[in-house]
């Protein structure tokens, strides 16, 4: 069993590593092993599965990368799950992680935009922004309208990033703004792991074979 699975992993890794950037074959193997491990837990339910479901994926984001905001983890899941089948497949897993861990700025811009575009219509609307920024200001008890600050924050963000003045952020708007100021990459919430957790994750995922 073990040798069979190892062999299948190797062949799979071979094909995937040709399609996915940033990882060599050994690294892809590591990621596949991790994926299989996670799948193994899930397989216990007995149903045939195509990949990681939302809950499991969220757990990983939470535990490994410290992302806690449900709204954003949903977004990340959406961004990973390219075929919208509500499962993250092996391929989607490695592709997603390649951006998350080693993506270039352009890849990250695309990824972040996908995360923030909650309804997937190709625009980040004021409403979406409002939802994402909802908890970003400390409420002051004296305020009459607690949402006023958030609304205003959304307004200034639109003013800053909406270059074509259509009241919502297209990908082009987003890309231009981020190119101008990289800090805006994660403008609406943390959706990329920080350097430290990347390091920890990579150590875990990639050094496993040598330990065995």
């Amino acid at each position, binding site marked *: 069993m073990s040798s069979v699975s190892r062999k299948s992993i190797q062949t799979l890794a071979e094909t995937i590593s040709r399609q996915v950037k940033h990882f060599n074959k050994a690294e892809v193997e590591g990621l596949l092993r991790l994926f299989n491990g996670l799948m193994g837990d899930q397989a216990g339910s007995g149903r045939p599965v195509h990949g990681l479901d939302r809950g499991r994926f969220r757990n990983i984001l939470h535990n490994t990368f410290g992302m806690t905001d449900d709204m954003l983890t949903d977004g990340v899941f959406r961004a990973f799950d390219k075929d919208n089948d509500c499962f993250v497949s092996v391929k989607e897993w490695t592709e997603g992680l390649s951006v998350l861990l080693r993506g270039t700025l352009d890849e990250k811009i695309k990824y972040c935009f996908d995360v923030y575009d909650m309804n997937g219509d190709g625009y980040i609307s004021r409403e979406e922004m409002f939802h994402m920024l909802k908890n*970003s200001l400390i409420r002051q008890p004296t305020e009459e309208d607690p949402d006023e600050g958030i609304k205003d924050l959304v307004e*200034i*963000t639109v003013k*800053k990033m909406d270059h074509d003045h259509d009241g919502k952020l297209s990908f082009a708007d987003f890309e231009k703004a981020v190119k101008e*100021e990289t*800090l*805006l990459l994660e*403008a609406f919430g943390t959706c990329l792991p920080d350097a430290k957790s990347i390091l920890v994750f990579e150590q875990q995922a990639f050094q496993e074979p040598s330990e065995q």
Partner: protein
Amino acid sequence: MGASLTRAVQWTAASSGRPGKLEASPINESLLKDILGFVEQFGSGGHPQEAALVFRDPLQWATTLVASDFNTDYDVSGADVQSQENDGKGHPLLRLSPPTISVESFSQLSKLVQLAGDKGLTEVGACLEENRDPVVKILGPRFATVLEGDIDMSALQLVDKLKEEDPEQAKDSEVKLFLLLQHLDKQLLSNALTDFTQEVGLSPSAVKNEVELLKGFCSEGNQRVLKSVRYTSDYEFSNGCHSPPWRQVHGEICYLVVKPCDTEPLHITCSSAGVFLNQGLKQEVEEDDTYKRTSDMYQDLASLLKSRSPHFSQNVNSQDFAVQQRLPSTQEVQHVEPVGVEEQGQRQRICKHQGKNAAKMARQHTVLLPSHHCIWPYRKTKYEPTPWNWENLCVVSPSDEAEQKPSKGSGKEKAGKTHKKILRSDSKRKANFSLASLPGRQSIQKSKTEDLFSESSSESEEDEEQPDRRPKTNMDLPSEYWQIQKLVKYLKRGDQTATVIALCCMMDFNLVQETCQMAIRDVGGLEVLVNLLDTEEIRCQIGSLKILRKISQNYQIRRAIVDLGGLQTMVKILDSPVVELKALAAETIANVARFRRARRTVRQYGGIKRLVELLDCAPATAATLSEAQEKEVEVARCGALALWSCSRSTRNKKAVWQAGGVPLLARLLKSPHQNLLIPVVGTLQECASESSYRGAIQSEGMVKDLVANLHRDNVELQMHCASAIFKCAEDKQTRDLVHQYKGLKPLVSLLSKADNKQLLAATTGAIWKCSISMENVAKFQEYQTLEILVGLLTDQPEEVLVNVVGALGECAQVAANRVTIRKCGGIQPLVNLLTETNQALLVNVTRAVGACAIEIDSMTIIDRLDGVRLLWSLLKNPSADVQASATWAICPCIENTKDAAEMVRSFVGGMELIVNLLESTNKEVLASACAAVTRIAKDEENLAVITDLGVVRKLANLTDTTDDKLRRHLAEAIAGCCMLVRNIVLFGELRAVAPLVRYFKSQDCAVHLATAQALMQLSKDPTNCLTMHESRVVKPLLVMIGSDDHILQEAAASCLGNIRRLFLAYDEARYPAR
């Protein structure tokens, strides 16, 4: 304490034999508070020994305390109280027999004020009222006299003096207590001083208010007090002044013509120092006379008018009510505005900042609120009492009052700062109602002036220039101001996502603009930005630094950042693994560390070492870089920028050296990237003022790279390279290296960029220093540098001129160049420069003119241009260097002028000047003066004059010198003066001969020659011969006879001959038989 009590404290006039009381003025109150604090510190465990010290005489006063106020440490018997603590002889240190209390130590005093609680101030006041000289009582008259006498003495000197006077009595604790008292004294004085300075002095706005008020008096009818009040010029400058800028520097604010009813028009000047009458414009006098003061100085317009116009002073007192109704509309606004709860709340907030006195202050304010105080009474404290009706006129907005009142209560910086903040919020609030309303602007202006004031007083140590930031009266706050305030609000309240958005939006503003910088600061944005640096959030840190690096170009922001401890955090960030963060931190440090305290902070927190580490990037010599390399270069660039700023302090230069910065800088110097090279070379040239760096620049082979960079097409880089060469080329080896690496030609070609004055100054400086070597001069000749340099002698800034003239002076040491300078028409501009005042320039000009004067044709031109007279007048220059250089230049002038003797005589007092220079303490001046004397003495008539001026005695006084240069010229001068026979004898009488003989021990041949010639002259007198013989002159003379120099041979031989002949004659006289 003595000084401040006598000088600063305001006593009421002593009345009917009773000692004067302390006036209940704010200044006194603050003084008392400070003294109270001082006393309290003894109780809180500070200085236990000093606290226990028993006073010489007890301090006694009538107290309000009663027996029941005392606790268990005291023995109470009826109304009397005695302390349990005694002086060791059973004598209690505190005794109370109502109403008199007597206290004998600070420990008891401090307990007393604690017991007194709120009444502490009254007690201290009463104590001081009855003990006008507390120091005498505490420490005895001895200390007090010292304290009174020498408040300027340093503490140590004082202690020494005390010990000297009475070594046994000066017990340690006594001295320490004395020092404490002295410290307190100083503090009190300086606090009082700040208070006074705030009191005195008019501000444009105060004057304006008063003028507006007075205009209200110019009504028709029977209430008329004045005919008219008008400004001479209605134009108001942005700082609120009406006077032209060149008068504003004298502190003058505006000029008024006031027509009173009973006298002729008064022409009045309002200046920051006070109000006075001027000549007026009508008399058609010289402009300067127009502004001349023709009356006493008054504190305000009203008092001036009262003294000048009896009608005014009579009527004004009965007019208060009527005037109040007729106040200008702007002030009406003030009245209408409700002085409501909010205002009061703000006042109380002010008070909270002031600690324990809050309650008292608050009371004061609420009492004051209804009667709008005018500013006059405050200035009045020391002068005649103001009539009350003036006070009822509201000329000062409530916010002004709030500002003034508490800062008087405790003249401390901190209090001032809290006010600024409050004021701003005040102004903001008003401006929200109506942006352009006057009060808002007024208080902003006020706060700004106060800014300037407090900054300059508390930070006088800063060595950077303070840009002239005049308060902008008419400035409407732009919308950016409010937008930025909003963003800062989100910074404060937001989580990291909101913070980053706010930061990014803030970056979009023009942060170099002062309005934006101030907006950020005013709402406490700086605190937030600095705090963000302390978080773990890299993106917040980056965003914050991106803003800080921009706004730190403002000097006030820089100070604020340092005050908030931002530098420490930035230094810590330099250790971060995130490259971008490191670079940004270093760049911000580079901006902030532009003043001394900041540079010191960077060093003290280990910043220099970390910055030096940033320089350690991989040797990227390739022109194109990978992204990572690029980042690394950027870090190195920012590190170098920061080091550049920091290296303006000498200690930091040493720290950079110790941290091993030099080899790293040397390595970076080979980099091909210009933007990296500029700060690197900048740092190097900054450090090159230290000799260790100059040595390293030479030994580490940096001269080659510096020269190479001269070829790059980047003006700033070229400038710093030239500047580095300028500083290093003082050293001969460096000059040779510049020559060797062919650096002279690019330097010369840089002269063509004459429009860039900084570059020109650096280049000409480098050329000057390089031209000290003769082989370099030859090169410069080859590149026809002199022609260019002569062209740069006119219309250049001083720093360029100094270097150009310096270079010409060096080049002119070569004969051919003197001709070139003359042929290019360089003599005239050089002589013209003799009238300049810059001493460095004068030293160089005189040297150059002196060198040119060696050539006869040039000399003719100099003479025609009256250059010699100009040189001669420079002998009066206070700088010894100028004196020496001018005197040296005079020497060839005398030699090469046809009627030199006549010319010298024509300068009235000229010879006296030279002779007097012989009394200088500067060796170079002395040597040059001797040389000039030698030249002057060639003419018999002039020699007679200088002999009458006592030249012989002065020369004789110098003979003991050991300086070879001076010896040589002195010996020559003595030889010259011996042309007059009586001087020969005189030198002997003045014992100048024996020291001269010792000059033969010198290693310098020139000294030998001059000495031999002087001795030859002196040996014409028999007594001198005897002295010489006694001084064993024969042996060295015999050696000199053996010299290769014919003149020396001859002089020595002839001197020996004179001695010999004397002895022969003696023998003949003694043994006539033979």
